[in-house]
């Protein structure tokens, strides 16, 4: 049985889709069988970032409505053969997602893959709650600015109340992924400090992804940054995040700071 990860944030534009694709590609390059599921029905982007937009035939809604089989909708990546994509529909809306249908699809994917990564839509409405409902692990993507942090806090509250794990009285495993971190702006004090974000959200830190042109460039050529430019700073940060996700104990490096005192961000536990 595979693990279901939901990549969520509450606020739009923080880098959920980029992170879903990058983490998926990084996990797949380690040999794991990975499927990335786009839950953003009506505004699909993940297929663009993964460079599969011209190969979409069937999508998640077709599978849920019984118009197509799961195997027909899954798109295999041309670069990494253990990486698959289940695209969202661009023409339908989120009302077409039923909780029974989503449960059945996730169940089938869990049985066949090591990792099921759900790219959640922004917001706290139906689409987002359905995407997080069956998750085992949540990755909360946050930018170091107040509105993003507040929305993430709201999402963490929902993860602890509206998911199956929460309803069964278990604890959802939650990780914080700090994206679009700009060392220069952090130095000027224009952004929240890493410590402040961690203090407010009080969940363990999975990684800090620096703001970088490499991410934008990779998105535009339709390749996850962990595939397109494996030596770039964001790609390395994503590779490290994946190692932590698998349970490795790695100190987190804050971009633009000298090595050596990251030990203090390391081993933080949720309150």
């Amino acid at each position, binding site marked *: 049985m595979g693990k279901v990860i939901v990549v969520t944030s509450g606020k739009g534009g923080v880098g959920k889709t980029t992170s879903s694709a990058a983490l998926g590609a990084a996990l797949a390059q380690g040999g794991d069988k990975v499927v990335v599921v786009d839950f953003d029905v009506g505004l699909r982007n993940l297929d663009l970032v993964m460079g599969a937009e011209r190969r979409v035939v069937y999508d998640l809604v077709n599978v849920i409505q019984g118009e197509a089989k799961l195997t027909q909708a899954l798109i295999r990546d041309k670069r990494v053969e253990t990486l698959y994509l289940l695209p969202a529909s661009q023409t339908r809306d989120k009302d077409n997602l039923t909780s029974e249908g989503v449960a059945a699809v996730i169940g089938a994917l869990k049985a066949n893959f090591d990792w099921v990564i759900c790219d959640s839509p922004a917001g706290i409405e139906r689409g987002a709650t359905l995407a997080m409902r069956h998750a085992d692990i949540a990755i909360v993507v946050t930018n170091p600015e107040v509105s993003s942090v507040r929305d993430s806090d*709201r999402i963490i509250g929902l993860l602890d109340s509206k998911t199956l794990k929460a309803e069964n009285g278990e604890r959802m495993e939650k990780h914080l992924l700090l994206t679009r971190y700009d060392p220069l702006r952090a130095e000027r004090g224009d952004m929240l400090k890493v410590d402040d974000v961690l203090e407010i959200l009080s969940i363990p830190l999975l990684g800090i992804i620096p703001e970088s042109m490499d991410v934008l460039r990779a998105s535009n050529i339709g390749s996850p940054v962990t595939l397109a430019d494996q030596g770039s700073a964001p790609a390395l940060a994503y590779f490290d995040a994946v190692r932590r996700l698998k349970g490795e104990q790695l100190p987190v490096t804050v971009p633009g700071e000298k090595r050596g005192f990251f030990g203090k961000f390391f081993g933080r536990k949720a309150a």
Partner: protein
Amino acid sequence: MTDVLTQPRPIRLKGRSYLALTLTPELPFEDWLARLDDLASRSAGFFLRRPVVLDITGLDIDRAQLRTFVSQLGQRQVRIMGIEGASPSLLGSDLPPAMADGRPTSDFEPPAAAAETAKAEVAAAEPVMPDLPKSVPSIIVTQPVRSGQSLVFLEGDVTIVGSVASGAEIVAGGSIHVYGTLRGRAMAGTMGNAAARIFCRKLEAELIAIDGFYKTAEDMGPEFRGKPVQIWLDGETFKVEALA
């Protein structure tokens, strides 16, 4: 020409209900007072600090008689807070005010005679409490209260071991204790408990309220921001004090 109010804050009119003890004296007053003395002797301080209402409906007395009677009750430590069923001509500025709209409730237990006497004599100096105070309920939350969450507990105190996020809300009938940073809204004493307080380890609140009085972050001075404080009401003003 309009008067300019120097105090922009309006006066709050609040309602409060008490259970009053109603005395219905009978004529002649001397006999009735003797019976009252007998009752009071069995229970020291039975009338102390109790709101007492005099019901003189249907009694044929004049103002002088009534005044004498009230002063005689006063000598027995029975303070009359109001008089029911009196015609307006009977009452004056030196007498308790007229009361109306009283609704009957269950009878007060008259103090029991034998068994209580010994106890009453021991505690003669202090008034006998009619019923022991019940323990105040409280709840303890051991995880952070997240943005968008609202925690309502009108029965008593709320203790949070963790932080209250910006955009979260705590509503308590009693006091609020936050062992963490209070960034959201805290409303204590919402059921009319002006004695409720708000305690937190780090004050960053968006709004604090006690018993309906509130202050927003903007109204709070910067001097206590980020500090461990307790907040309480002194009359109608907030008092903030740093905790050691």
